[in-house]
């Protein structure tokens, strides 16, 4: 397909509008979201919706046609997303399947991987996830210890992964493992495409104190992987992971051309509404509480303003890309303080955990915002080292064969 044959965006938009009206169900505004940990029906529905899109010729808009997409431009995708407002969409596939995993495979995978996995995802047949973090890992992703050992033509995988979002619902995962223990840590990693549900993988859903079970933990026991499971080069896994992280940042920033429809379909923990809590506690007229209401509201507005400022800074090149960590740190700090204010405003009512905004329960997840997506400690390292140019922290594992790096007992 050459440029000259590309359908004009407006024409595409009108076609999409008509098709959506005829084929896609409207969002039910009164629908109650399922309780945490009980979203099987949603995943079934998601696959159905994606199959509809595919059947209608509106799936994988920005993916190349040779991998099952439409090969159109981000403007086409934007137009479709705008038109899809108000319709049910397979939003759960936006992250990580379409915005992270598929583009990574497209950048780094073999021709066969691209043809098979990307097109299956676009058809609504397969869901992709990431196996990256490990129980022993924390902030140090590249220090992972899951091992893949060569056995003739195959690889044997042993170890464990954790914090894999929605892995329970997935078909394939991008799994990073260590294949060379004598190389320094970034240089001995290999990325594999792993079938999620098969013998040799035990999966466990992690229950958070909020009741959410969207994260999973996986254990690999002598799981055999074929040679063609390798994505990119053997021992070149860090390059693949870096693309993944790049696509993840892009997706979080709202800049991915591969998402279709708005949002991720997952309900994040709602922020406490301080005014509502104050009223429920009978304290909305108390000047002490009013001062807290004002403080909380101000912080939330400032956080929006900070995001706007840094986004402009990044777009115009007036801020270096690590400045994204400023948004991240500001966000966590705002969350902490607003959660604290909610607790103070609720006063004696926090005992029950329930009530307005379930203040107490919410407070148990206070650190959520500062742990997901790289801890605030990492953000502070990045800001001081990469923006302010301060000396980097001593890394005891730099340029050291990984087998000689000290690892903790937990």
């Amino acid at each position, binding site marked *: 397909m050459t440029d000259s044959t590309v359908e004009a965006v407006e024409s595409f938009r009108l076609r999409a509008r008509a098709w959506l009206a005829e084929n896609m169900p409207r969002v039910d505004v009164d629908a109650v979201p399922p309780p945490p940990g009980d979203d099987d029906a949603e995943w079934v529905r998601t696959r159905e919706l994606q199959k509809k899109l595919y059947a209608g010729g509106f799936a994988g808009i920005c993916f190349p046609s040779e991998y099952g997409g439409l090969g159109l431009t981000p403007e086409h995708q934007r137009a479709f997303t705008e038109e899809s407002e108000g319709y049910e969409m397979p939003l759960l596939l936006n992250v990580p399947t379409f915005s992270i995993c598929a583009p990574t495979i497209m950048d780094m995978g073999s021709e066969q991987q691209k043809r098979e996995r990307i097109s299956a995802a676009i058809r609504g047949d397969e869901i992709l996830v990431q196996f990256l*973090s490990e*129980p*022993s890992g*924390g*902030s*140090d992703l590249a*220090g992972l210890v899951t091992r893949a050992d060569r056995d003739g033509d195959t690889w044997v995988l042993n170890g464990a992964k*954790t*914090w894999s979002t929605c892995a329970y619902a997935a078909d394939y995962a991008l799994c990073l493992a260590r294949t060379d223990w004598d190389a320094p840590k970034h240089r001995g990693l290999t990325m594999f495409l792993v079938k999620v549900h098969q013998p040799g993988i035990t999966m466990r859903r*992690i*229950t*958070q*104190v*909020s009741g959410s079970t969207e994260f999973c933990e996986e254990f690999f026991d002598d799981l055999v992987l074929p040679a063609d499971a390798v994505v990119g080069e053997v021992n070149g896994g860090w390059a693949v992971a870096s693309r993944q992280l790049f696509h993840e940042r892009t997706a979080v920033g709202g800049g991915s051309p591969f998402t279709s429809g708005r949002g991720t379909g997952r309900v994040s923990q709602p922020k406490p509404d301080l005014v509502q809590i104050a009223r*429920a*506690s*009978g*304290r909305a007229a108390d000047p*002490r509480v009013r001062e807290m209401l004002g403080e909380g509201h101000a912080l939330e507005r400032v956080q929006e303003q900070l995001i706007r400022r840094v986004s402009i800074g990044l777009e115009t090149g007036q801020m270096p890309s690590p400045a994204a960590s400023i948004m991240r740190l500001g966000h966590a700090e705002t969350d*902490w303080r607003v959660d604290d204010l909610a*607790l*103070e405003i*609720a*006063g*004696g*009512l*926090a*005992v*029950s*955990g*329930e009530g307005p905004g379930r203040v*107490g*329960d919410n*407070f*148990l*997840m*206070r*650190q*959520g915002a*500062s*742990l*997901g997506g790289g*801890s*605030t*400690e990492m953000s*502070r390292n990045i800001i001081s080292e990469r923006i302010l140019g301060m000396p980097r*922290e*001593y*890394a*005891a*594992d*730099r340029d*050291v064969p990984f087998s000689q*790096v*000290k*690892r*903790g*007992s*937990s």
Partner: protein
Amino acid sequence: MDLVLSADQKLFRATVKGFLEKEAPLTRVRELADTSTGFDRDWWSRAAELGWTAMLVSEELGGGSVSGDGLLDLAIVAEEFGRGVGPGPLLATNIVLAGLAAATDGPDHSHIVEALVSGESVATWAVYEPGGQWSPLTPGLTAKPGSDGFVLDGVKDRVELAEQADLLLVTATTEQGLTQFLVPADAAGVSVEASRSLDLVRRFAEVRFAGVEVPGSAVVGLVGRAEPLVERQLQVAIVLQSAETCGALERVFEFTTQWAFDRYSFGRPLASYQALKHRFADMKTWIEACHATTGAAARAVQDGAEDAAELVSVAKSYVGSRSTQILQDCVQMHGGIGVTWEHDLHLYLRRATVNRALYGTPEDHRLRIADIIAPSERKTS
């Protein structure tokens, strides 16, 4: 709590600790979370045999303490309780006992005291009212003269273990003023409805009183003169609550520090990162301060010191605020695992958060302190 314990107190602490570790480890606490009662009555009777209900009661009534300073001994139990997020009515029953023991005038409740001390009976204080913040001196629940005593009408909530208790110590407004009544939980007109609790085993309930008739002998102390008793109960409640929170902090700080030694990142233990080390140093300092102010409050209440009310509020102001701050930073130190159900951190955070909220928040107690140090501008309400 106090750094310096007598040999008897040390032995007592070891006994308490051993009993809790054996009979109520965290695995058991998690099991109890799924029961409707949150604790086991037999277990509680055995705890009572160890003296956990005797400390605030005179020897004539079956009480007695280790050191002669009953509240200080009891605070040792509370601290160990906090280390293990213990179940059961330790605070609830002892708060009621503190009031009964102090009510030297008025009807005789010695048989009830004995039943509470033996662990046969369980009592709890019904002082909060729905939607309300801490204001124990102005209950909306009324006690009007009835044919054979009083008739109680009104609603209490956040009543600890009300579903499990045999007796409720109820604050009420009578024509003569603030009065407390001991009401059997199964009295006609009393209905109890469990409410959700943030704590896994410390349960709360709403209790409705609809024309509940009680005899005059149900009054604790004198009619209309309950204010000093309420103050006494509050002081004991906060000392025990603060001691419990101190124990929780101590335990969480221990395993978080250990985590920092064991957990490696970039080839180095977390404990080698200065930014984290400094936060551990802050936490250590705050925990010592929590112990210091709890110990000072306990001693003042024990001695009936003139500044006991002030020191109790000082302790609540400090421990209430710092405790949740410390625990949240310990969550942060743990990373993602710190917000999972399987990790024990949230059991402690739940307990500390409930303790922070109950019997006046730190903010409420700051106002109380202001009323002491700047009384002339005190709001007349």
